[in-house]
């Protein structure tokens, strides 16, 4: 067992084993909900495959916990394929997970729009097709900090991923077919927008060093979830100012209808205390109501993180009756749990 670098203030053994050891711990903590295939390197629903149910598979780099492993279970994902920290999983894992949870009704891949994720899931879907499993891929790209243009890899997938996994998971659970499960996931992505800021960097276990240094009194604006710097730096503002900074680009990029009901997902990046996150939620809630929006569903917590990064992201989803019903439907995973 390699010794932890003495400078790394982390709870781990061999830094190169952190993902595998963490997944083993997740499975040990939630044996009723999930199982971990250490051989093929994926987390699956304890009762997978569920015959006749459309199966949902997602995955991506690790370091965003509880995403995705914490969302495996009844009413959400059938399997999650975690790559190394901030590194997309490999096609082999994705293929193995796809086969393991296929219940004969088709498999949906929920893929965050990052070059690596897209390529690896694409290769896995091709292999699955060779094995006679038809896979429908849904791309999530809700981050308005990145313009979707020829000059970028396209918008990143961030907070909407959690909402799409929950809502599509509920659709699959109630027996919808592959096409309509994929369709509702895409509808979530179309109706959701996100924006995030960081007050500190995070420390990937491999390097043990912060990815960037943020001078005192500065914040990174327009960040993703991989500890990467944001679009720009600005002087650190008050919670009220930061709330405005989050709300404005989100409602500008896709203005919800006047008086629309919205799901407000205020996400902590990992290192921000709940005391601060709820304070920020109060500011966001007020700003939305000022804009004639009704926060009729709310999710506040650290659900799609960058390790211990301090900061927050806002995801706004314009609801409709079906999306509300699917959001409220029971979910039974390590990180999201309600209903029976």
């Amino acid at each position, binding site marked *: 067992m390699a010794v932890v670098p003495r400078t790394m203030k982390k709870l781990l053994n061999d830094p190169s084993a952190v993902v595998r050891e963490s997944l083993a711990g997740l499975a040990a903590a939630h044996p009723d909900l999930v199982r971990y295939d250490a051989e093929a390197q994926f987390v699956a629903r304890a009762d997978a495959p569920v015959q006749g149910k459309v199966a949902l598979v997602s995955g991506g780099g690790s370091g965003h916990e509880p995403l995705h492993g914490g969302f495996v279970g009844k009413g959400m994902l059938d399997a999650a394929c975690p790559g190394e920290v901030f590194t997309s999983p490999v096609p082999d894992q994705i293929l193995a997970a796809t086969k393991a949870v296929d219940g004969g009704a088709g498999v949906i891949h929920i893929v965050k729009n990052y070059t690596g994720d897209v390529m690896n899931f694409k290769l896995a879907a091709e292999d699955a097709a060779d094995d006679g499993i038809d896979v429908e891929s849904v791309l999530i790209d809700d981050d308005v900090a990145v313009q979707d243009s020829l000059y*970028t890899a396209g918008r990143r997938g961030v907070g909407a991923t959690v909402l799409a996994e929950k809502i599509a998971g509920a659709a699959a659970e109630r027996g919808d077919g592959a096409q309509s499960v994929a369709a509702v996931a895409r509808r979530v992505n179309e109706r959701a927008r996100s924006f995030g800021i960081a007050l500190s960097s995070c420390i990937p276990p491999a390097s043990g060093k912060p990815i960037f240094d943020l001078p005192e009194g500065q914040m990174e604006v327009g960040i993703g979830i991989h500890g990467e710097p944001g679009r720009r730096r600005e002087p650190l503002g008050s919670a009220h100012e930061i709330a405005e900074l989050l709300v404005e680009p989100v409602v500008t990029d896709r203005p919800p209808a006047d008086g629309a009901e919205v799901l407000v997902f205020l996400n902590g990046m990992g290192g921000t205390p709940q005391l601060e996150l709820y304070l920020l939620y109060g500011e966001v809630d007020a700003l939305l109501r000022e804009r004639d929006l009704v926060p009729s569903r709310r999710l506040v917590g650290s659900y799609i993180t960058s390790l211990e990064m301090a900061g927050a992201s806002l995801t706004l989803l314009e609801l409709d009756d079906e999306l509300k019903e699917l959001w409220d439907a029971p979910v039974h995973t390590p990180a999201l749990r309600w209903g029976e």
Partner: protein
Amino acid sequence: MTTEAAVKANTVTTWMNEVAAAVGAESAHLTQLDAAIGDGDHGVNMERGFSAVEKALAGQNAELPPGRLLIIAGKTLVSTVGGASGPLWGAALRRAGRSLGDADSFDGAQLVAALQAAVDGVVELGAAAPGDKTMIDALVPAVDALRNGVDAGEPLEQALTAAADAADEGARATVPMQARKGRASYLGERSIGHQDPGATSSALIVRALERAVAQAG
């Protein structure tokens, strides 16, 4: 040796071992470049992938033709790297391998064709153009330099030295570029002023090929 002389299968193994050693030695530097405009994992990714390749090839029987070894190397990268560079380098080596086919040796012209196929594979999968601040910006000039040298009848080592120099230069040339592909593109103008990690590791890979062929010769 001249471009006429043939390169043997074990040269591929030597090449891959040289790459494993090079990305291992440069791992921290590559990761640091990736931290500046990406997510700080490129060095670890390449190191993980090529040490797996080294292991995979060590297990192969000596009779396998070079093309087959490259296909195995490419598949190994796809299965172990992840990220963007895994599928991209996986495609590159598999295409190169297919281009060499089952011949048990290859000459300069065949090497040019194989590396061109590799670049084409990367472009097909990643749709990057020169100037997008990616590995392409190191690989394209390298292949062009190699082709010129071979066409001019230069000895293969000499042509490969020119190719490796061109790759280094191409990598350095990514510094002033604004990224249009991959993670770095999220930074917009903030990506300017940093050298692209993938282009940097690509130059290491071409340099390793030069060393491998020289050792064979």
